[in-house]
């Protein structure tokens, strides 16, 4: 058999110098290690302020302002969580429980209306033909270029007319009209990248426009919508100017305002308390981010398109 001949010939011919293979492998390992060391160094440098913040919540005022090292001098202080307790209780009559609740009362409805309005508007821009569509779309993109501050005054006056000052409406309502142009734009672009075949198949299966949206388009948009929800959550959670303009009663303050208020108190401030509570304030955003991360990775157009 001719095949046995070639097979027999193989082992006698030495594999092309195994020393060379080892050398290459070693070189690759060294370069890999070097890259990791450099990247870890840079990463650490960028995260250091965060570590410092964490450590500072266990320090005294005096130590906070005099040391750059992130751990407290006396490590037993790490077991003392009183700063967290004091920060949470605040010096006002309300605890941060109230402020967190207030924040969620703004954030959750706002995320929901953003998702609904963005999807509807993006669906229309990406999938329907109607007169003036191009013009409307360019207006929408145009508003993205406006500095948000320009809108503050007219919006304030408008909500004042409507009697909505010192309520959460001015913070939520605009999003119900897809005023977050960036999100709408994001979803439009995403939808444009999805082939129409699936929607056409669903039309033939008997979907009307709304069923199409709900059964097919929304599931396809899931990765984009998760990004939208995530960013809207974080940005609204961190929004300071909005509540500052519209909310005047302390009882209705969201976390961002309450934090600022704790710093404003005249007299002696325990910075550890403030730092502790700002760390707590980061937690919801971080949690949401890590929960959503999975979906970013899972990826977008995992449709039936394959060779």
């Amino acid at each position, binding site marked *: 058999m001719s095949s046995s001949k070639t097979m027999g010939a193989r082992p006698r011919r030495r594999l092309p110098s195994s020393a060379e293979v080892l050398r290459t492998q070693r070189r690759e390992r060294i370069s890999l290690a070097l890259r990791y060391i450099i990247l870890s160094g840079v990463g650490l440098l960028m995260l250091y302020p965060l570590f410092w913040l964490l450590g500072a919540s266990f320090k005294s005022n005096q130590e906070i302002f005099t040391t750059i090292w992130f751990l407290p001098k006396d490590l037993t202080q790490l077991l003392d969580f009183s700063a967290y307790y004091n920060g949470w209780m605040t010096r006002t009559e309300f605890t941060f429980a109230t402020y967190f609740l207030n924040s969620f009362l703004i954030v959750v409805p706002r995320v929901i209306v953003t998702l609904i309005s963005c999807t509807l508007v993006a669906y229309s821009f990406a999938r329907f033909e109607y007169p003036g569509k191009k013009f409307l779309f360019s207006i929408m993109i145009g508003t993205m270029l406006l500095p948000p501050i320009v809108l503050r005054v007219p919006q304030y006056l408008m909500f004042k007319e409507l009697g909505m000052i010192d309520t959460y409406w001015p913070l939520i309502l605009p999003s119900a009209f897809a005023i977050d142009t960036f999100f709408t734009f994001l979803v439009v672009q995403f939808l444009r990248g999805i082939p129409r075949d699936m929607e*056409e198949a*669903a039309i*033939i299966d008997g979907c009307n426009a709304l069923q199409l949206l709900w*059964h097919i388009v929304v599931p396809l948009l899931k990765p984009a919508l998760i990004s939208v929800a995530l960013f809207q959550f974080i940005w609204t959670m961190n929004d300071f100017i909005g509540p500052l303009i519209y909310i005047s009663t302390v009882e209705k303050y969201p976390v961002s305002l309450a934090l600022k208020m704790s710093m404003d108190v005249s007299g002696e401030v325990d910075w550890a308390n403030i730092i502790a509570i700002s760390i707590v304030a980061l937690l919801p955003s971080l949690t949401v981010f890590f929960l959503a991360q999975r979906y970013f990775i899972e990826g977008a157009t*995992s*449709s*039936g398109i*394959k060779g």
Partner: protein
Amino acid sequence: MASVNLEKIVKTYPNGFEAVHGVDLEVRDGEFMVFVGPSGCSKSTILRMIAGLESISGGELKIGNTVVNNLRAKERGIAMVFQNYALYPHMKVYDNMAFGLKLAGLPKQEIHERVTQAAQMLEMEHLLDRLPRQLSGGQAQRVAVGRCIVKRPEVFLFDEPLSNLDAKLRASMRVRLTELHRELRERGEPSTAIYVTHDQVEAMTMGERICVLKDGTIQQVDSPTTLYDRPVNAFVAGFIGSPEMNIRNATVVAHDGGLGVELGDTLLPLPASFADVLSNRVGQKVQFGIRPEHIGTPQSVLGAAQHGNLATVKGTFRLREHMGNEVYTYFELGGHEFAARIPTDFAGEIDRAERGQPIELSFIMGKAHIFDLDTGLNLTVAANPLS
């Protein structure tokens, strides 16, 4: 009863481009009709108009006895398989197939029966629990077909369903689809099918009748063999068959009491049956067409002698391609390049020929075609024998 009738169908896209220019066609009940043509000839446009995915700009479209111009897709009794399968990525295979039935409000029990039956027919019961991204191309394709079958549509529409598959899988799916169609028809279920492809092999093997399209107009509608033997014009002749038919400019001349064609310095006698239609064209330029398989060595064409006069000439050898049982031979004759398909057993001297060497070749002239130089119309269409 579900024939599909197109009467003077016109499509003008919103940008003003007229893609379909008054197409008339009848697809009979239970027939497997193939639309074939080069890319951009509006095959998909016509299919999508039948499906209800594109509006019809003019003319009348009937499915069965109903004019469906203004009916929505779901009211037309059609189902469609897309090139990219278009499975719903977030639904399991079972739900992909059941989706349309659920929307139609069928009872759960019946949905279940139909889906399992279709899955059995397509041998994909083990796939029902998977998501589309867990399927191979061939499996996804079967699911897409299954999704159509469960709906028991009057008409199946296919838009290049096999073109994303590799060559081997494509060949086997071709057979499966044809078998499936026969099976449905034998069971007495509605099974009219319209199948779009740009691949003439698919068209020839699958179609009971083939509709050849070019630039939004129908060139010819006929059975595969008729299309092959009697193409109505040079376009159809060139499009059907592989390698392509040799179509070269030539002059009709009087020869030996009959007619012949002159290609450069070479004269090929034409069969007597061509005399009637060509007698008034002596001295005129025409296009001479002959398929590669109708050129051979003197030995290989012996059996074909009954097709009338053989013409044996000397050509100049250029190149050969071994295909196993055949040798594709490229040679020059009268200043034109020709291709011939010669059975390997008869290749003889061609197997050893050097570039530029003269070789002897025989043309089966009874199988030749003469096309009008300007219009491309086949002048000898009635004179060509059917195989």
